[in-house]
Every structure is written in C-alpha cells, then in structure tokens.
C-alpha cells in the first residue's frame, strides 16, 4: 500500500529525513517510535503532502503510484489521513460542517454526488457512538477551546467519518486519559480491516497494548535505525533510547 524508498526531505535547507525506507502492506499496523525531534511528525507531514517540506530525493508510492507531485488534498482524496499531533482551531466552523465539507469535497473529487443529508446524519450518529462522543460536541467550533483529549478524540472521529485507506496517527495518545485512550484505541481497532493500514506514531508503549502493531520501527535522526515486532516496543519502554543510540553507533 505505502512504499517509501530512500526518502530525503528538508525544511528551510535543514535536512530532517535522511534516507527513510518503509513498506506498509494492506491490513498491517506499524508503529514508529523515537525520541523527540527525530523526525516522526515530519515524516507524517511529508507523506500527507505538506508543502513547506521539500523532498530532496527518494520516492513515496501509494498503491504503486508515485504521489510526489500530488497536492495534500489529492492525497487525501486517495485515502491518506493524518491525525495531527497538534490539531488546529477553526473558529466559527462546527465539527459537523467541517466534516460535511471534507466528505463532499472528497466525493466530488471521486466523481460522486454529495452525500444526502440523512445518510450523513446516520453516519455521524454511528461514528460518534463508536467514539462515545456527545453529539453536542459536534456543533462546537472545530478544536476551539477543546481540551487536549477532546482534540485527539475528534481527530479519530474524523478518521472514522472519512474511512481512509492509510491512517497516520501522530501521538494520538498524548493528552488522553486511560479511559479515553481505551475508547479511541477501540475505535481504531473497529475501523481496521484487511484493506486498510495504520501507522501509529507514539512515545509510549501504552497505546500499543491496545492497538497492537505488526511492526515497530525506531526513528532516530531522520533514519529508521531499528525495526522489529511489538517486543521491541517493550524493550524501548524498559530501557529508553540510549541503548539504541549506542547500538547504531551515534
């Protein structure tokens, strides 16, 4: 589904990603861990198509197609979803209105008609139940005055609504208390299928108890320096990152 080959990317002439290789197949869950500043969010943004990041070399293939030239919205239309580490506020635009716009813009790009209102309402009801979201919440301005946890839950609600092929969850666990974490993880698991894939970016192994990864990668200074199975996450939790730094000789 997603294939990243020797990807180098920079921002403001500063090299951040320095040769990433990653292969995610349909049905898989990958976890990316690593210390602060190692480039995890940058990788997510580059895959999602944020323009201020410049791809120097390498390629990103989605279902075999090089998406380097595609805009962020075109990638979204092809099923790429990013749950933001820091979701932005859009005052005066309700969650519902935002979702309606997002869904219909995506449908338009796919040559479909707008989703009928009753279908939309039904979907909103189902997905908000899945994530135990109070419906009143959906008429509030997007992320404005939301707590950290509410923002993250709202990101996953959007994911549920958009049903992406590839979801990248960037530190979705930070800001969530243990109950919310369980609800959100449960939601993600229910949305999981043989046809989609999830990349979970996290610092903590905690989330991975709920969303169990098939593979765990350690990102350090812009490179994936170690890959393994979920045991690697336990090991990192127990020993921190220093041993990895030593092992890779930096």
């Amino acid at each position, binding site marked *: 589904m997603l294939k990243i080959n020797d990807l180098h990317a920079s921002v403001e002439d500063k090299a951040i990603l320095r040769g990433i290789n990653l292969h995610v197949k349909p049905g898989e869950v990958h976890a990316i861990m690593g210390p602060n500043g190692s480039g995890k969010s940058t990788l997510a943004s580059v895959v999602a198509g944020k323009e201020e990041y410049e791809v120097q070399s390498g390629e990103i293939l989605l279902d075999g197609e090089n998406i380097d030239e595609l805009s962020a919205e075109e990638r979204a239309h092809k099923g790429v979803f990013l749950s933001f580490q820091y979701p*932005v506020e859009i005052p005066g635009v309700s969650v519902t209105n935002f979702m309606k716009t997002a869904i219909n813009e995506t449908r338009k790009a796919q040559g479909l008609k707008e989703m009928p209102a009753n279908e939309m309402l039904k979907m909103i009801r189902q997905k908000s139940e899945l994530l135990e979201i109070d419906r009143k919440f959906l008429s509030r301005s997007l992320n404005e005055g939301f707590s950290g946890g509410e923002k993250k839950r709202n990101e996953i609600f959007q994911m549920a609504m958009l049903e992406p092929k590839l979801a990248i969850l960037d530190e979705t666990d930070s800001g969530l208390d243990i109950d919310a974490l369980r609800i959100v993880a449960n939601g993600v698991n229910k949305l999981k299928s043989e046809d989609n894939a999830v990349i979970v970016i996290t610092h903590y192994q905690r989330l991975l108890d709920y969303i169990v990864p098939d593979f765990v990668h350690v990102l350090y200074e812009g490179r994936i320096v170690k890959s393994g199975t979920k045991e690697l996450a336990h090991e990192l939790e127990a020993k921190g990152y220093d041993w990895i730094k030593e092992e890779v000789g930096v």
Partner: protein
Amino acid sequence: MSKYTEDDLREELKTKEYEYGFYTDIESETFPVGLNEDIVRAISKKKEEPEWMTEWRLEAFRSWQEMIEPEWANVHYEKPDFQAISYYSAPNSKPKYDSLDEVDPELLATFEKLGISLDEQKKLAGVAMDVVVDSVSVATTFKKTLAEKGIIFCSISEAIQEHPELVKKYIGTVVPQKDNFYAALNSAVFSDGSFCYIPKGVRCPMELSTYFRINQAGTGQFERTLVIADEGSYVSYLEGCTAPSRDENQLHAAVVELIALDDAEIKYSTVQNWFPGDADGKGGVFNFVTKRGLCEKNAKISWTQVETGSAVTWKYPSCVLKGDNSVGEFYSIAVTNNYQQADTGTKMVHLGNNTKSTIISKGISAGKSQNSYRGLVQVSSRAENARNFSQCDSLLMGNLCGAHTFPYIEANNKTAKIEHEATTSKIGEDQIFYCNQRGIDTEKAIALIVNGFSKEVLNKLPMEFAVEAQKLLEISLEGSVG
C-alpha cells in the same frame, strides 16, 4: 392571500419579468454636466415635485456649496470633479446588449456561481428580454398584500406625489440636508430611491426587498431611502443584491433614513457588491453613504451589512437612541481585496435612559487592500444606564493588506457601561494544511475559514440572503491566497 410569502413571490418571479411599474416613466435625455441651482430646479421639475421639495433641494445645494469634502477617513482616491458629472439621466431602459454572448464572460461566470437564473442574468447584465405582458399580476399581488395592511412601499418620487405629508414630515429629520458633504449633495440632486411606511401595530408579513424593485440600474447614483415604522410596528428591509453591479457612475452617494417610533422595530440588511475595480485597482465605484436611524421609546433598529464591493467605501450606519430603553445594533462584514479601501463602522448615540447598543464588526482584508473600522459610542450626560458592547475582529490574508480599528468613546454619564473588544488574526498555513489534509482544497478552505469568522453576522441576515452572502464572500476572495 395573507399567506403569500416572499418565497411565493420569488417563485413567481422565476417565470415572469419583474417589472413592477414602481417607476414613473420618465422620457428623458441626459442633462448637461455640471451642477448649479438651475440643474437642481430642473431635476425637481422633471420629477414634477411640489414647490416645498424644490426649495428643500435648493437649501441643500446652497449648504453643499459652502462645504468641503471630508478628508479624515483612511481612504485615498482622486476626488471626483463634481462639475464633470451629469446629475440626471433617464433610467437605463434600453438594453445594452442583444444577447448574452455579448456580455463579459467573467461577469457571467460570477452569475453562474451565484446561482442566478438565465433570465435574471440577462436582466442584470442589461440584455434585451421578451416582455411578459401580464407581468402586472405579480406587482399587483405583491402590492395588494401590502396594501391590505396599509403598508406603503414605493419609490421616493412616487411617495413625494402620493404621500407628501409623510415625506414632508420625516425627510431630513434624521439626516439633515447639511449633515455632511455627501448627504448635502444627495439632498440636492437625489434621483430616486425607496419609501416605506408601516402603520401602527402592523408587522410587515414579508421582507421588503429592493431586489424586486429592479429600477435600481439607473438610479443608483444618488439614492434616497426613507423608512418609517410607526408605533409598535415591525419591518425587515433588504437592500441591494449579491450580483455584481457594474455601473458607469463612479460616484455613489446614498442617504438612508430610518425612523422607528415608540415600540417599533426596523431590521435593515444590506448586501453591497458594487464593482470594486479590476485586479490592478482601475475603475470601481466610490461609495459614500450616509445611513442613520432614529429610535423613539422602546424602539429597536438593527443594521446588518455585508460589504464586498466598491473601490472606496465610506459608510457608517448609525443609530440615535433618543427614546428610553431603545436599542441599536450594528452587524457588519466588510471584505476588501486587491486595491479596495473601506472605511466603515457605526455611530451609536445614546440620548435616552437605559439605552443599549451592540456593535459586531468583522473586517476581512486580502490583496493590497486597506480595511478600517471606525466607530463612535457617545453617551449624553442625561442618558442614565447606557450600555454598549463592541467587538471588532479583523482577519488578514497575506502580508500586503492592512486592518485598522479606530474606536472612539465619549461617555458623559458615569453610569454608562461600555465594553470594547478587538482581535486581529491571520489565516495560517497550518489551518490551510489541516483542511487540505481532509480533502478540502485551498480555495474552499479559505471560504470555510472566512465563513466561520463571519458567522455571528451572517446569522443575523434573513436565511435566503445569508446563503447568497456566503457565496458572495467566497467569490470576493477567490484567488486571494495561493
């Protein structure tokens, strides 16, 4: 018949030519350029006005001659040569084009986006149309519904003929002839405009809309509007049209006077979309408007405006809260793009006790435009317990535009409570990327953010108008980022 709503009317209008015959037909050549007492007299004569009206105009003209054009507003433009303008020309009844193919495709594309029907497009662009002979029925239905309630809604020229006592009693009482330079000019030469009277205790059953009085085309330059809501009555009045108005007249100086007698309420909504000039700032309308309302006891006046057009806008819809417990409101969205300049805001003058005013102003600047809010809250020494809340928010798009806020407060009574809040924000790249990531392209993302920003004001517009205004905001800002 009593259930006949504006929607019904709109429905009928779709199939019929909306020529209401509100216009007293004037067969006329255009007057020679220039302005003097003879021209003022000639205008009055053309309109077969009574002597007192001619005198009133002349008084205004004499004051105007003594006045100088104001320069305090934060706008810069080449002053019009008032002697190079023709002050009277017959309403433009001759079609400009024979078919839509001859009309500027850009204009048509805009009509398309606004969802304006083909017939309306022709009408607005000035294309010849087949005249539907029995169009009279629409006008009759509309007028009959109003007449049953004793409501008068007609052109000001007609009102001067048919209801001289009302016009004489109220014209110039809220905006005196010598109020300011442009008001004086308007008083001397006003070509036409609307008149509306709601009798005591009557709730006007439909929105009164100048949109249906399509005679605007030729009379827009010096429009004069007078709305009188008698005791305990209510009216919602819609002015303007979302369709872009291209006009050869560069200078527009309208006057609107509202009178809300005891316990009456007037809602006055405007969507203004005059030609703003091209992307380089060439052409475009200068819009110098004086709008003011007077509230008697327990009366309420709300001004709601969406301003997207004009090269230069100078406009301060105001409320004089004369009666005790009266309420004034001002809700405004002003968009400037390219080289547009807007200096707009309001004046709330608190004279009565327990008077209340609310000001919500949303300025959106893009391109190289300048957008200024100028507001005065004045509390007289005799006004006990006056309250005002003002909120002025500015949204900037890009680095080349400007937003300015000039709030003036003159509180002469210690019991006054005045609150002022102001914010300035910028559409951030992060907001755009967030939307893009959800499949929303940049243009649509901006529209979404701008609509969110303007929501408090859009919500004050009548539903139909709000939807149109929303589309208009989108179009006005197209291509402004990216």
